């Protein structure tokens, strides 16, 4: 899908909103499944976002600079006997893009971004 640079697709808006919600609640870092679950709960959806759709969007958003990620310490994962998580967080550019998305289509987005997190 061709789109204007710096604009967000609906799924990207959802990811960003959920990421910011989590940050406000003290969990600034999220992994793929966590955000899929959060989107499902928040939007009262029947299904979790598909693997391909979710990770492609996360990859694209990282390349656009809206998200940043880092792999967690393998020792932490090993101690908890689970696979290593890739932890994402919303960047200032991402917050700004979300604000722009709300301004462009306020009726399409149900929740407002946290103004305290938005960086011009």
């Amino acid at each position, binding site marked *: 899908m061709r789109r204007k640079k710096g604009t967000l697709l609906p799924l990207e808006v959802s990811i960003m909103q959920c990421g910011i919600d989590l940050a406000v609640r003290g969990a600034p870092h999220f*992994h*793929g*499944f*966590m955000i*899929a*679950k959060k989107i499902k709960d928040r939007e009262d959806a029947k*299904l*979790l*976002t*598909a*693997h*391909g*759709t*979710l*990770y*492609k969007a996360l*990859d694209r958003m990282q390349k656009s600079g809206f998200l940043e990620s880092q792999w967690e310490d393998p020792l932490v994962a090993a101690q908890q006997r*689970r*696979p*290593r*998580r*890739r932890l994402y967080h919303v960047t200032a550019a991402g917050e700004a893009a979300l604000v722009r998305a709300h301004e462009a289509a306020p009726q399409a987005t149900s929740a407002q971004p946290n103004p305290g997190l938005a960086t011009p």
Partner: protein
Amino acid sequence: MIKLLSLAIAPTRAWTALYTRGLLADVRGERREEIDCDLWEHQRLADLEREPATSTAAAIMLRLIMGIPADMTWRLEAGSNARSGRGTTMNDSWTMRGLLALALAIAAFPAVIGVLVAIGANGEIDGTTERLIKGAIQLTIGTAILTGLVLSARRPGLGIGLVAAGTIAISVMWYWAAMITLPVGLGLVAIAYFRAGRPNWRRGDSDLPNAPA
């Protein structure tokens, strides 16, 4: 429960292994690790919420199937990025050749069944005309899929189209086996799709190390 979940997890991992094959090691490893982590977290949450295994398995399968188009487009993008750095793709590998051979063998199945039906070897249909028509249709479908697989490298649109059309047709005709024909057909389309993405498909790729001059 574990067996049921394995039935959903194994195809997800196999699919991830397939579509990341031939990518740069770090890109491939990261995507596989991320999917592994997702599957683990999904199972853990299902355990905590005491969700029935059937629901969890169905949810994982749906997430897999619904995400396949995005996986394929991501693969093409990631593959073209990788090609700018080196010339090897999944299509050059022995794995891809093996997959193609397997796909051709699978695609030959409806064609063989068509011949058997036409000559009355299965003994199920009495009327000669009906038998011949059914046999011819199945033979045509099998031939279309085989042709599509072979053509997909040189004529991507036609090749993928033939495989997809053949898959749909055989799924409709053998509707009672749709649980098998649809995923298998999807796999055949994926193989045709990846073959179509070989380096010498696109014009203007002549700067690649292994592209013809």
